[in-house]
């Protein structure tokens, strides 16, 4: 069975004055099956959002997808014209943004912002669109949806606004939802509610999800697969159960060590030393070598992508059980 989404060697660049373009996304490949949840993790600035926008065809100009292919339902998105791309957005691939305070248009009623989404893709009369919008609001847990339809965004709290955005994303029961840190801006309790509701709704509809976050705890709870991104590249991918119990890449390990958990509560968390490199000025080879405890001279050359069953990583000194086999780099190709 062909994957629902297949991203192959994606490169997304932002041009700069008098310098080579910034590769915000650099040679990224992954695929996603129908109904699966992929957690895309990495520190801020690693290129997660740009990956999402590249799939949506919404990279801010003058940025552009410079290389690679994105297949959705077997169709190469690069072959679609603007109108075909528009028909895909919102109906087959939906997106939820990070900051719920900024996602809804402040001068339009919730009703308008919901019904226009329906009418952009389906022929129906106002009353029907309104009814569907109301049902969608009720579904995401907004009380008295009928009345709330005529409210403006500023009359909602942040959490409620994010529910509205999720309701909008679900209106057409899309095959894929890209959720770009949808709970980062919210309180922890509201975060938990929204995550579990989102999970239920996505499961009911068999919707595939790319859940972008920097929070490994969310990924371990929500995702089937994980893709770890560092400075524009995927450094490790695979099933969550394998990657988060037995990471290969030192960056993944570092991220895991900096997550608060039951047994480290109260103790100082280990932070990854140093700073995320600026994408404008990346270290050569494995970009992580400036911060990696296991780095040596080999790491200044770009490590090849190493496959091990369902998982892959880019590290010349991988951690874990199979580390010795891979260390020479010749055992795999």
């Amino acid at each position, binding site marked *: 069975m062909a994957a629902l989404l297949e991203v192959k060697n994606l490169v997304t660049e932002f041009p700069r004055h008098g310098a080579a373009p910034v590769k915000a996304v650099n040679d990224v490949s992954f695929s996603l099956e129908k109904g699966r949840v992929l957690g895309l993790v990495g520190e801020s600035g690693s290129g997660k959002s740009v990956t999402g926008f590249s799939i949506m065809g919404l990279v*801010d100009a003058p940025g552009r997808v410079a290389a690679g292919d994105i297949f959705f339902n077997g169709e190469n998105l690069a072959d679609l014209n603007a109108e075909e791309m*528009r028909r895909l957005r919102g109906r087959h691939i939906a997106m939820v943004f990070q900051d719920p305070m*900024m996602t809804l*248009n402040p001068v339009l009623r919730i009703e308008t912002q919901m019904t*226009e989404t329906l009418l952009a893709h389906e022929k129906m009369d106002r009353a029907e669109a309104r009814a569907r919008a109301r049902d969608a609001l009720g579904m995401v847990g907004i009380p008295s949806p009928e009345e709330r339809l005529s409210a*403006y965004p500023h009359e909602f709290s942040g959490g409620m606004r994010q529910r509205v955005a999720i309701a909008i994303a679900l209106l057409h029961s899309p095959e894929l939802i890209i959720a770009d840190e949808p709970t980062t801006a919210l309180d922890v309790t509201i975060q938990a509610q929204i995550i579990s509701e989102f999970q239920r709704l996505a499961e009911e509809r068999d919707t595939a999800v790319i859940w972008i976050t920097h929070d490994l705890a969310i990924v371990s709870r929500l995702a089937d697969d994980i893709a770890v991104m560092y400075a524009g590249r995927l450094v490790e991918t695979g099933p969550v159960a394998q990657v988060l119990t037995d990471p290969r890449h030192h960056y993944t390990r570092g991220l895991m060590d900096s997550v608060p958990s039951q047994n480290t509560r109260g103790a100082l968390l280990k932070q990854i030393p140093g700073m995320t490199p600026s994408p404008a000025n990346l270290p050569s080879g494995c970009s992580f070598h400036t911060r990696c405890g296991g780095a040596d001279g080999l790491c200044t050359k770009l490590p090849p992508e190493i496959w091990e069953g369902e998982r892959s990583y880019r590290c010349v000194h991988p951690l874990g059980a199979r580390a010795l086999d891979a260390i020479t780099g010749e055992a795999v190709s």
Partner: protein
Amino acid sequence: MVTSIIRRFIQALFVIVAMTVIVFLAVNVIGNPVDILINPDANQAERARVIAEYGLDQPLWRQYIDFLAGLLRGDFGNSFVYGRSALQVILERFPATLELALSALVIALVVGLPLGLYAGLRPRSVASRIIMSGSILGFSLPTFWVGLMFILLFSVQLGWLPSNGRGETVEILGMRWSFLTEDGLRHLFLPALNLALFKTSLVLRLTRAGVQEVLPQDYIKFARAKGLSERRIISVHVLKNLMIPVVTIVGLEFGSLIAFSVVTESIFAWPGMGKLIIDSINLLDRPVIVAYLMMMVLIFVGLNFIVDLCYTLLDPRVRLDAKR
């Protein structure tokens, strides 16, 4: 909401009262109307009679009280020049000025909005650069100079359009209007364009700045992510946010459009209030000057009030604050 309207209304009244004092004092400082009212050959008794007739022998405060009382009755006294009610003289000229200012406003919006929208959406295109340079000209060239150039080019050289007067008019609701006849429209075109020049540049720049502020917002990207057409995004999501500053500024500026019509009316011999006030100042026709100034105060204060209301209607966030 209602209390805030009442509060604003009381503020407006205060402004008007303060302005009556300023206007009254200012007008008593310029010239002595007796000099132009009375034939220099007139004898002493004749002078005294005229001075008493116009109340000029009374102390200043007495004159102010009379002035206020007259104001409330809409009575500014008789024009020294026309010998009729000053207010009536002004109101006769008002439609001409209103027509000119409204035409200029329409031109400013019809030209400024689409050009500003285009320049905002395609900031790097050659056309946008030409539009923006043009708007700098519109800002910096003096109105009277452009008016003279219009006359030289379109009236004198090309002979396409007339350069003075209102042309043929039609009477509606007791007022005469030019824009309903072909000849009137031809007369209206050049002065309206001249008056519109500055405001067109203003609307254009406001619109462009608004577009550039709205476009990078997350809610526009989200609208795209919903699969809305570009047309809907621009005509609803961008334009609705844009209208808030544009309506506010344009509404406030409408008063200055009426006030600045003085220059255009003088150049094109347009028989409106602006031309009247210049003539009246030359002749020291005090009641007309006072009536004109008070009318301007009313127009400015009234516009401010209306713009406030519109702003509340356009921006739901303000509406809520007012409710609290």
